[in-house]
């Protein structure tokens, strides 16, 4: 019974991911695809040639997005991991307020906070810089990192760490040999979420990056509003490729009976 359910879930996920992508693939190769033709009447590689030409700036945008997303993941872990552990394992005064503050970026639209931050960043000379864009991406990313890691830590006892410590292990050793293996599946899922949220940022990048930090969404957006669907489809495929890889990877993690799924409903 459970097996059938699992298979149904897998099929649903695969269809959900694959179905929207199939027309995109066809569009990216279509030179002429007009109603009522079921398939393109003329095919061409010109959109893909454009994607890989320097004028499209797709490759440049891809690399910028990748660098920023990886950097944001590292920052998110540095900030989110200690915060999540403290919230999950300790009770302290003002905990409710801190939990709430950490979730605020999910509730408040990014554009609102970014418009305010823009002025501050200009004064700090952070606009139009890699660091500035990464920092502004951090805002919507941290809640997801914390949300996932709090659920991981609340399912995680400190008994093993205590045992290790009584056996003489120092804090670094305890973290590397005991804590990290215990939370690793959950940490990976949280990092993937963080990566994807940074990967998809448009308006925050444009405002803080001032157009000089050209990420993939910045390249893609004008095409979505244009009428050349072939180019838009080709760039979209480049854009969703990492997301699909990440989804496949995380769904494996989620499918296992790991700590990740455990206390997901806690917060």
């Amino acid at each position, binding site marked *: 019974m459970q097996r059938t359910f699992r298979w149904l879930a897998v099929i649903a996920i695969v269809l959900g991911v694959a179905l929207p992508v199939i027309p995109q693939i066809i569009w990216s190769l279509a030179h002429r695809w007009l109603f009522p033709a079921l398939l393109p009447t003329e095919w061409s590689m010109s959109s893909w040639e454009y994607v890989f030409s320097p004028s499209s700036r797709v490759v440049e945008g891809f690399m910028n997005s990748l660098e920023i997303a990886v950097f944001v993941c590292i920052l998110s872990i540095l900030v989110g991991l200690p915060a999540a552990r403290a919230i999950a394992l300790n009770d302290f005064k003002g905990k409710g307020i801190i939990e709430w503050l950490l979730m605020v970026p999910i509730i408040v639209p990014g554009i609102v906070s970014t418009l305010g931050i823009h002025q501050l960043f200009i004064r700090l000379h952070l606009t139009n810089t890699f660091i500035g864009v990464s920092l502004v991406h951090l805002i919507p990313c941290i809640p997801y990192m914390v949300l996932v890691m709090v659920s991981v830590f609340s399912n995680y006892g400190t008994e093993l760490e205590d045992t290790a410590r009584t056996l003489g292990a120092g804090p670094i050793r305890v973290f590397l040999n005991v804590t990290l293996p215990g939370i690793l599946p959950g940490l990976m899922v949280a990092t993937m979420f963080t990566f994807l949220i940074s990967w998809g940022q448009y308006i925050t990048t444009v405002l803080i990056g001032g157009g000089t930090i050209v990420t993939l969404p910045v*390249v893609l957006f004008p*095409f979505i509003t244009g009428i050349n669907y072939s180019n838009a489809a080709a760039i979209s495929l480049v854009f969703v490729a990492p997301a699909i890889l990440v989804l496949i990877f995380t769904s494996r993690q989620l499918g296992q009976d790991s700590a990740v799924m455990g206390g997901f409903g806690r917060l």
Partner: protein
Amino acid sequence: MVFNSKRIKLIFAITLLSILTLVAIGAVMAQDELIGEVPGFASWEEVLAAAEGTTVNWWMWGGSDKINTDVDTDIGQRVQELYGITLNRVPNGAELFVDQVLNEAAAGVEQGAIDLMWINGENFKTLAEADLLYGPWSEFIPNAVYVDWADPALAYDFGYPVNGYESPWGHAQFVMEYNTALVGEEPPTTFEDLTAWIEANPGLFTYPALPDFTGSVFVRHVFYWVAGGPEPFLGEFDQEVFDQYAPAVWEYLNSIEPNLWRGGETYPEATVMDSMLANQEIAFSMGYGPADAANNIAQGIYPDTIRTFVFDTGTISNNNFVAIPFNSPNPAGAMVIANYILSEEFQLKLVDPAKWAWLSPISPAVYSEEFQQAVAGMELHPATLSPTALAAAALPEPNGDWVTAIEAGWIKNVLEN
């Protein structure tokens, strides 16, 4: 002294000829000199020297692969070769430039992100009124000799005086696009014929919802038609004049509404309309690019059966301008590029139907004999009207305040009615 009329005619002719010769010589000779003073630079050599080896951040709308590639090859590569300037084309949505400059100004940034921007009339007015543009410069760069600043379409951008703060580089004119498979070879070129066609063919006509700029210019044409010409709307906004014509416009637009696409319950976006035309969901589209239809056919977006026309009473035209923000780190490089795109070399590529396929803001007569011969030899795509036919039908834009009033009025009286 007795002057008979013959002698007066002769003197007049000689004077005229010498003026023309002087103008012609001036145009050829002044090409490497500043014509007036620009802020911060004493001579064109100084500008060129300051520009060499620098990067120019040119902000522009980035949604056309053709324009992106053309700018990189025909401008970027050439200014690199000629002046050692690296052109960094910053692709963007068109509405973000103003916010960027306003925010930088509010925070007191002296070295901004933008050097040059391809800007629309509305944004130009906003920035000019806030005193956030570098200048005046555009009348003083060497190739400004080619620009006919006496032409109101170049001296004013949507009724707002350019005054040396914007330099033209392309010309745009409204055309109607239609599918001959649905409309036939003889399109309705008057509003009377168009109205009759819409009534006979319900569901096949629509226009973009205002304040979309394509929808907005279509409704401006209705205003011109109702008023019998553009004249009442060229000066400052006048509420009485507006109230005199507006009710008839709203009444007309409401009268065709039941026969529009989806019974006029909703109006599409301009780009969606192009795609609906391509897929025969509607029979007409419209826009500011006379060669857009030809480009779209070449790219496979449109079927071969799309053609364009202008109304017998004319269509609205305007110019594409570039401007430099007050805090551009590199105004010298920006001016060199603005100057290059007015050159004969570049304008020849601009008007070539096989290359850019734009219209030029410059009269071909100011360029060389070779230029005019090359232009005469260019073959137009069958979906593109000839520059002469377009020029003959060109109408001016109204003052920008009229546009705002028309857009607000349409939403209140047509959309919400």
